[in-house]
């Protein structure tokens, strides 16, 4: 079983899937030229991991902007997690948001509406607001 790590770029988020820690982190902005191509390796690793019936996975998401085709990919990822949750995998997701940004919160809430595993929306404290 392999982990996966992608450094963030302007249009793609940091992806850190750590098999030993059982965590998946997505952080940054997501509007690549081809979202499906970008997320494909993430889907593969996660599917592989979930197919081994692991005890748990914790997902931390902090995406300040997600374009529509990336949103579709995130939805596909959440659907895979949802299936695993229904098979008994302990799935926990924390979605960090800038609460002052209605659109960002709305985006997180719309994902939350379709999911039954523990999905928390957590206010992210603004970094460096006074510097």
């Amino acid at each position: 079983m392999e982990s996966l790590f992608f450094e963030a770029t302007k249009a793609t988020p940091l992806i850190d899937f750590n098999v030993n820690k059982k965590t998946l982190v997505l952080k940054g902005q997501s509007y690549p030229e081809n979202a499906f191509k970008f997320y494909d390796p993430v889907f593969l690793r996660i599917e592989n991991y979930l197919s081994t019936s692991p005890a748990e996975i914790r997902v931390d998401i902090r995406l300040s902007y997600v374009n529509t085709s990336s949103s579709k990919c995130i939805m596909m990822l959440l659907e895979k997690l949802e299936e695993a949750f229904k098979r008994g995998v302990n799935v926990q997701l924390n979605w960090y948001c800038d609460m002052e940004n209605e659109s960002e919160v709305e985006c997180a809430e719309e994902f939350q509406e379709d999911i039954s595993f523990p999905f928390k929306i957590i206010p992210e404290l603004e970094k460096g607001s006074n510097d």
Partner: protein
Amino acid sequence: MLDDKMLINLQRTLTCSGILISFSGRFSQGIIEELGEAIMKHMEAEDRPRNDIYNVFAIFVETTHNIKKYAVSKQGSSVYDRIYNSGIVTIGRNEEGYFICSGNLIEQSDAEKLAVELDTLIPMPKDQLKKRYKEQMKKELPPDCIGAGLGLIDIARKSSKPMNYSLQSMDDLLFFTLTVMV
């Protein structure tokens, strides 16, 4: 050749229309990223509400990706170069708020489908747009698709006023324009 007078006139036109950023030509992912970042920085410097910055940026990304993906889908066709070179986007500000105006050449058969979709989306109230967005989000996509079919719905949702579009004949093609306000 563009002479100095034309250049000054061009700049005057941009300034008089409140245009902050404009690009005309072939959109690349790099150009989209740079322009997107520029408009975001500009709006942050102007202390605009975070939600407005997000919406302008999102509309800009969706529109320019649509133009780019449309052009790429015409690869191999005799109109490919004309379509690819025809993209234009402007972002500006007037007394009503920020506007994102974009345009590109499209083929007649695509124009009909696009007009039907826009005529459906434009009068839709926000709650219905959300419903449509979620339905589209759950649709299975063909394996080699490049988009999720969500862009225009998302633009309509983020627009503060009904979107405006036009189609004008240009030889055998049509020039499509879309204006969105935030």
